[in-house]
């Protein structure tokens, strides 16, 4: 994950275009519901920024206020240094790629791309050259005379991109552009969008609810929840140092250990003490978050933990393997250990996805290497562990507040 985002974060654009600034933007709907709640944001020129969040979190509404399709109730929006808050969409000089592409069905691909070049003082020859250039950019040479209905969904997506970029807007907005494509095509288009972003150097604002897209494409991710921006950071920052339980659970998978803080770097989880590094809330209820790939199988628990005796030999082998592995990974063994029961094992090819149930009833995940000599079995009682540096602590409502 981190490697991929690092690659995406090295754009080599020829020229960098305008940035976007949101200053305390709020959007209240006529129904009284708040779509965007006091959002401030600065997007650097040429940056690829993703608005990520569940549906109804305000990410699309925020994009719409930038595009001019929705008028903010209060706040200020700047594009390339100019205040555009009061401008209609047609005067904002933005490129917009819509969720279902919104290609004009009565026009050919070429006419669709030419639409935005109209009225920009370009000569006919220039317009023709620009169209061919953008067709080549999205690798659709030769399809200019087709209508949108005569090309595939992936090709329509490319036309939508070409159409929005052909007049060289400083900022390109994309609203869930890959949502309508199948998985394989989506992965290919992600690569394409990254390439195009590097080539044109335009600022890209990309809305998605798909964490994979957000992690793989963005320079920075803006995480939305209930109309508010809850965290802004690089994909690695968001994944490795989530600032809230919401961020941890929305982006990637987590093991969440809820408990009470008991001093700096210490959380009481039931009878146990869990250690973590880095900053966190000073006191009160909190949760330690550990990613599945950071969690390690330390050993099988004693049979007295409730495991069926029939699995004892397997459990011993797992324990041996777990010990060897932790030694191989960095010597001294893990600082935190928690008992758990294996409730599900799913084979994923590169690893086994083991679902665990902890003593407090919460469930978690562990990625178990498939080359393990004796993989753990369903129902096993095990001990899992992790290093303090791989745990993040976030504020979390305590058990009492949970029940309420």
């Amino acid at each position, binding site marked *: 994950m981190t490697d991929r985002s690092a690659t995406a974060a090295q754009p080599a654009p020829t020229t960098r275009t305008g940035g976007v600034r949101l200053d305390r933007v709020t959007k209240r709907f006529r129904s009284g519901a708040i779509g965007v709640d006091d959002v401030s944001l600065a997007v650097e020129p040429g940056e690829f920024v993703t608005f990520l969040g569940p549906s109804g979190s305000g990410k699309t509404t925020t994009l719409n206020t930038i*595009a*001019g*399709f929705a008028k903010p109730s209060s706040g200020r929006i700047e594009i390339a240094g100019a205040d555009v808050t009061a401008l*209609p*969409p*047609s*005067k*904002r*000089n*933005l*490129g*917009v790629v*819509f969720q*279902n592409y*919104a*290609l*004009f*069905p*009565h026009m050919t691909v070429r006419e669709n791309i030419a*639409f*935005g070049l*109209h*009225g*920009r003082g370009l000569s006919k020859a220039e317009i023709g050259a620009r169209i061919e250039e953008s067709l080549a950019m999205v690798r659709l040479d030769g399809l200019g005379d087709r*209508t949108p*209905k005569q090309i595939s969904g992936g090709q329509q997506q490319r036309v939508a991109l070409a*159409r*929005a970029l052909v*007049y060289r807007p400083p900022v390109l907005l994309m609203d869930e552009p890959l949502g309508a494509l199948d998985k394989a095509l989506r992965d290919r288009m992600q690569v394409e969008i990254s390439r195009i972003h590097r080539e044109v150097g335009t600022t890209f604002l990309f809305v998605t609810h798909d964490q994979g897209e957000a992690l793989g494409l963005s320079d920075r991710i803006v995480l939305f929840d209930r109309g508010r921006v809850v965290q802004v950071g690089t994909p690695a920052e968001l994944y490795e140092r989530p600032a809230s339980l919401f961020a941890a659970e929305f982006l990637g998978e987590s093991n969440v250990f809820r408990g009470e803080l008991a001093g700096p770097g210490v959380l009481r989880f039931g009878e146990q003490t869990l250690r973590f590094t880095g900053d966190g809330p000073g006191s009160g209820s909190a949760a330690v978050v550990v990613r599945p790939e950071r969690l390690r199988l330390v050993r099988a628990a004693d049979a007295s933990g409730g495991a069926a005796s029939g699995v004892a030999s397997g459990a011993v082998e797992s324990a041996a393997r777990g010990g060897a592995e932790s030694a191989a990974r960095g010597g001294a063994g893990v600082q935190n250990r928690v008992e758990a029961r294996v409730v599900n094992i799913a084979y994923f090819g590169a690893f086994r996805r083991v679902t665990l149930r902890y003593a407090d009833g919460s469930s978690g995940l562990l990625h178990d290497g498939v080359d393990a000599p004796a993989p753990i079995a369903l129902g096993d009682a095990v001990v899992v562990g992790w290093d303090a540096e791989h745990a993040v602590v976030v504020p979390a409502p305590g058990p009492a507040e949970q029940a309420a």
Partner: protein
Amino acid sequence: MNSARSRGWAVLLLLPALVVVLVFFVYPVFALSARSFLEPTPGFGQYVDLVTNETTVTILVRTLVVALLVTVVTLALAYPYAYLMSLCGPGMRTFLLFLVLLPFWSSLMARTFAWIVLLQPSGPVAGFLGLLGLDGVKLLGSQLGVTIAMTQVLLPFMVLPLFNTMSGIDRRLLSAAHSMGASRFRAFRTVYLPLSVPGVAAGSVLVFILSLGFWVTPRLIGSPQQSLVGQLIETKVGKLLDFPGAGAISVVLLVITVVLLLAVGGGVRALVPGAKTDGGRDDG
């Protein structure tokens, strides 16, 4: 159940309607048309009479002009109405639809008699025109009165196909046009208007064809001196018992209708590639 068998059942479902159409529509039209070619002597005699008879030609031309006028006026009234319907919320839309369909709740006869009252020299329409300085306009027994009444009667047939097409136009296409710098006017002219053409065509053809065959309204509101084709056919059949002559006029109307349908269909397909005349919805 295999598909061949289910298709057999489907044909069975069609049968009652098919029988009705064959017995009460196709056969009479065919018989009347046949008589126009066979009586009194086989050949095109009836058609030669038709085009050489000045009165018949005048009436045909007058009918075409009235039909065209009614079509243009209903289109001008219905386009903004249907546009509003496609824009507003579901509650308002139901209300507007209700208003359009309201005339269907009363019989054509009742509405036509109502128009006789409204169009009287001392009636409200004349009064309104008087306010605009148009005193003494003859409404009853004139082409103007007939056009006004026919426009009202035929308005739903224009609104409904237009609304059907417009509600299928993706509003995001307009947002897309705006985002690319198009003004409201340009977005409407280059995106919305072309995409609404199938509805315009469907509504226009429907209203035009219905206008051609209109009989009750011109009969009651118009004057015999300015009769339309429907009245001419009625006179030939009812008073002169000239069935071959009436058949010849009917065939001419039928040919005009068919030619029009083909021309408009072809025109729409040429203008809007991939457009369907049923309203342009695409779920694909």
